[in-house]
């Protein structure tokens, strides 16, 4: 099953992608909010991009779904779709796990990269998807992010990355760790060439992704309530033997501690990113 058949190099309308994703989740209607516990009809959730109509809780969403409401209709042009996962450790059960995930999510990896535009401003996009092995970064995800930065540099376009990740992908071992250095170096190189990189952190962004490309944005943004950190809360609690306060490592907490420029509600991404892109527009950078 491949929900998102695309022809490479062709611009396309993202509406079918959005519809396919919504089809997958409408079975859960009406949907109970894990934050406030109240149930609302699925179409109400859809209308707000999977944000709880009652309390504003931002549910995790898939990469294609995000792109479908982020980009100008008809501007989506996927990059490196045929970049598939590898198994450098010959890790027991990993290939099977990958093919099961492809069946259940319609994704072949945890990242989607694309050319597209927001309010007419062109940019290179990469979006991580937490439904695929927690959005973890193995060699394919690292390669995709790196190529996205290289494409942005070559085409003199801004780079916008939405992170959502549990960190480095354990199943690919040390080479996953090395993707941190590889992506950070690619971002650094892109920025030295005066490229604009906007890093958008969504729930959850942790581990090796936080400690590499996701923390290096010229502009750092996040969705409300997103968990953002290097170590996960459970590991910290085990280390310091105390309970962490409510709101620890959440987007609002990072904003207060100086690590974010702004927290952006889901419905405002297009206008906020459009504004930043417009403010940096000068020869397309």
């Amino acid at each position, binding site marked *: 099953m491949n929900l998102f058949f695309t022809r490479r190099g062709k611009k396309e309308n993202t509406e079918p992608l959005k519809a396919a994703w919504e089809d997958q989740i409408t079975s859960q209607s009406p949907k109970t909010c894990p934050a406030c516990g109240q149930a609302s009809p699925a179409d109400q959730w859809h209308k707000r991009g999977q944000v709880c109509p009652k309390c504003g809780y931002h549910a995790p969403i898939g990469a294609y779904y995000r792109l479908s409401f982020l980009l100008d209709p008809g501007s989506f042009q996927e990059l490196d779709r045929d970049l598939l996962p590898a198994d450098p450790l010959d890790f027991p059960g990993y290939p099977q796990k990958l093919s099961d995930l492809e069946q259940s999510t319609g994704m072949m990896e945890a990242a989607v990269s694309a050319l597209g535009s927001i309010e007419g401003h062109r940019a290179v996009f990469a979006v991580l998807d937490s439904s695929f092995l927690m959005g973890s970064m193995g060699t394919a995800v690292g390669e995709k992010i790196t190529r996205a930065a290289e494409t942005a540099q070559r085409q003199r376009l801004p780079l916008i990355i939405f992170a959502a990740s549990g960190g480095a992908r354990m199943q690919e071992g040390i080479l996953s760790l090395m993707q941190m250095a590889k992506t950070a*170096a690619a971002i650094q190189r892109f920025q030295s060439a005066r490229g604009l990189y906007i890093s958008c952190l969504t729930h959850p962004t942790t581990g*090796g992704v936080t400690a590499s490309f996701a923390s*290096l944005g010229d502009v750092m943004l996040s969705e409300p309530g997103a968990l953002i950190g*290097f170590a996960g809360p459970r590991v910290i609690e085990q280390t310091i033997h105390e309970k962490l306060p409510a709101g620890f490592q959440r987007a609002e907490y990072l904003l207060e501690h100086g690590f974010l420029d702004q927290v952006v509600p889901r419905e405002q991404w297009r206008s906020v990113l459009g504004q930043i892109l417009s403010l940096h527009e000068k020869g397309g950078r």
Partner: protein
Amino acid sequence: MSVYTPEQKVKLARYPGRPGTADYIQNLFTDFFEQRGDRQCRDDSSILGGVARFHGRPVTVIGHRKGRTMEEKLRFNFGMPGPEGYRKAQRLMRQAEKFGRPIITFIDTPGAYPGRDAEERGQGEAIAQCLALMSSLTVPVVAVVIGEGGSGGALALGVANRVLMLENAVYSVLSPEGFASILWKDASRSGEACSVMKLTAQDLRSSGVVQAVLKEPEGGAHTDPQAVYRTVDAALRRELAALGRVNKRSLARQRYQLFRSMGQDLHPARGAAV
């Protein structure tokens, strides 16, 4: 070469009697001048660094410090740096760049500290900035994995032109205990994790993550530290001499390419670019 299993190597790499960063600095360098503090909030003593002479020539040397006695271990936080440690390292690297000094790093940490203060002050950001900065330096950088290379906290000092590794050192995406508990929900299967993680110097040499393996005495580095110092000294001399013949731009480019290529052969570039 010795015949230790990966699990035995993890034990050797962590053995408290094994020479650490402070020992290498004392035995391989002269005129060491320690530089402390991140100039923002504190000094993190789990990272030891400063300027010293290596065979007469000023270099910047930076490494993780674990400590040997319990008192030292507590003071150096068991070699687990917080963001201040990584920001101190960045400060020292920027100075090395400014004054054209080669940089030598010694890697020996279970990982970056997973604590509340560390998170509050941006552990992830501090490591990310280390990676980005190291990738762009125009001075020679040589890293030596001397003990335990644990996760992003180790890599933060590891973006070098040449990464050397002692024969019984280990370097991995996470500790074997962490790996087992994430993948199998069972930290007690760490022995099994050691054998699938490909974390030994020999494994990493074949995957291209390290460029040279340095021989240890029979029984491990702690059995004859002087022999290990001679080996590491000779290797560093050789690497610095070779890198000394490369111009600044090529040094940055070569280092970039080294890390750019990691895992790349698993994903061959497509013919038609968009």
